[in-house]
């Protein structure tokens, strides 16, 4: 009987192991390497015009960031109470605003170089963390952690955690707090976000 349990247990562990291996660490790391290279080392440091940079950023972010997923997350429980029209409108404006915000974030890393420090598992089977650090002019290097998710065979970034601060968690606190206080709820938030678009 004990042997049977042991057998079952090891079979279970094998399965669990397989589930963990859903996202190949090396693939995830290469994927982030590619994004930082095209996004930062090539794009930001290039002499392209602002308009051209914006166009290339838009393409890069639409392709490599899972903004539908992030958008759902940042609305928290309000996502479920939103009407399909509100959901669609929110994702649309959130996508545009993020491309704007993230290009600015990437601008902060101008002339900087990312060092890759391996990966860490996530609780979710389809996700993995890629650890990097950026040497700064003074003091300790800044830690930048990338949360990578596998969706339909493709790898996508779903969060960037800079010096322990998760952009997705921070946006979630901001948006849920806004909706809670706003008399117009989600519609108020959508209007406010539209006003932020340049």
């Amino acid at each position: 009987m004990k042997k049977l349990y042991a057998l079952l247990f090891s079979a279970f562990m094998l399965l669990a192991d397989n589930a963990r291996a859903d996202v190949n660490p090396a693939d995830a790391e290469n994927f982030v390497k590619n994004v930082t290279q095209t996004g930062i080392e090539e794009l930001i440091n290039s002499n392209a015009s602002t308009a051209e940079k914006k166009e290339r950023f838009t393409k890069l972010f639409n392709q490599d960031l899972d903004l539908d997923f992030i958008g759902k997350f940042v609305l928290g429980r309000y996502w479920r109470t939103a009407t399909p029209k509100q959901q669609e409108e929110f994702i649309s404006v959130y996508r545009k605003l993020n491309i704007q915000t993230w290009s600015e974030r990437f601008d902060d890393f101008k002339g900087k170089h990312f060092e890759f420090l391996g990966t860490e598992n996530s609780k979710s089977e389809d996700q993995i963390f890629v650890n990097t650090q950026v040497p700064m002019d003074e003091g300790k290097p800044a830690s930048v952690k990338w949360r990578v998710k596998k969706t339909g065979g493709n790898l996508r970034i779903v969060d960037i955690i800079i010096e322990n601060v998760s952009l997705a968690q921070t946006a979630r606190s901001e948006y849920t707090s806004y909706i809670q206080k706003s008399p117009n709820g989600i519609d108020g938030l959508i209007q406010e976000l539209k006003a932020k678009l340049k």
Partner: protein
Amino acid sequence: MRSLKTNIIIMLISAVLFHITLAWATDDDSALETYNRAMFNFNTAADDYVIKPVAKGYRAVTTEFIRERVRNFFGNLKEPATTINHSLQGNFADSGKSLGRFVINSTLGLLGTFDVANGWGLPKNKTGFDTTLAKWCVPDGPFIVLPLFGPSTPRATVGLVADDVADPIYWADYYATFGNDLERYSFYYGLTTLGFISLREQNIELLDKLTANSVDVYSTVKSAYIQNRLKIGSCAGQKTENNDSYDFDFDDEDDFE
């Protein structure tokens, strides 16, 4: 004579502690939140009308070379606090390195304005009493907004005051013999203000970006501040930073409120 800066900090903290105690006494989280938001708005107004314009003016009349000298000067004054606190945390090698930095930079580095020690393999490795308390298992307490100093917690506030006492400006103030009271006050108050403005100047772009795209700046700052503090670590000597805290799940109703 107690440092004017310390007097101001103690005064501000007494005011804040009064509000926190009140919030706790009435067992009402929203009382603290109300106080925090009011103080946050006050700080924002002070920043919009006074602090940020002065920081921009400072940037306009100085070159980056001068600003770096100023940053290094004030950074060097934090070195004694770093030395003491590395020792309190049991990191005696780091404490020695920090002391070496202070001695080298204060002399060869011309009163700390040049970071000579960095080039000699003694890079900056700052710590403070807040981190020491964290390693000693002192809990952090709730998020509070201090007048002018901004986001903090009770433990971070205690750290702020303790580190200030280790600042050579404080000692100099205590033992100063030159000039009359007014001259000494002007000197120290001027230095403290310059340090504050230099700090604000370094963060002009950062804060502009943070506020530009935010619909609720207070919530953004609060969330980012709390997350960032987790990297200080805990008393077990391990980082409290845990990937679990970033693992998100839509169906979890209780992970925010």
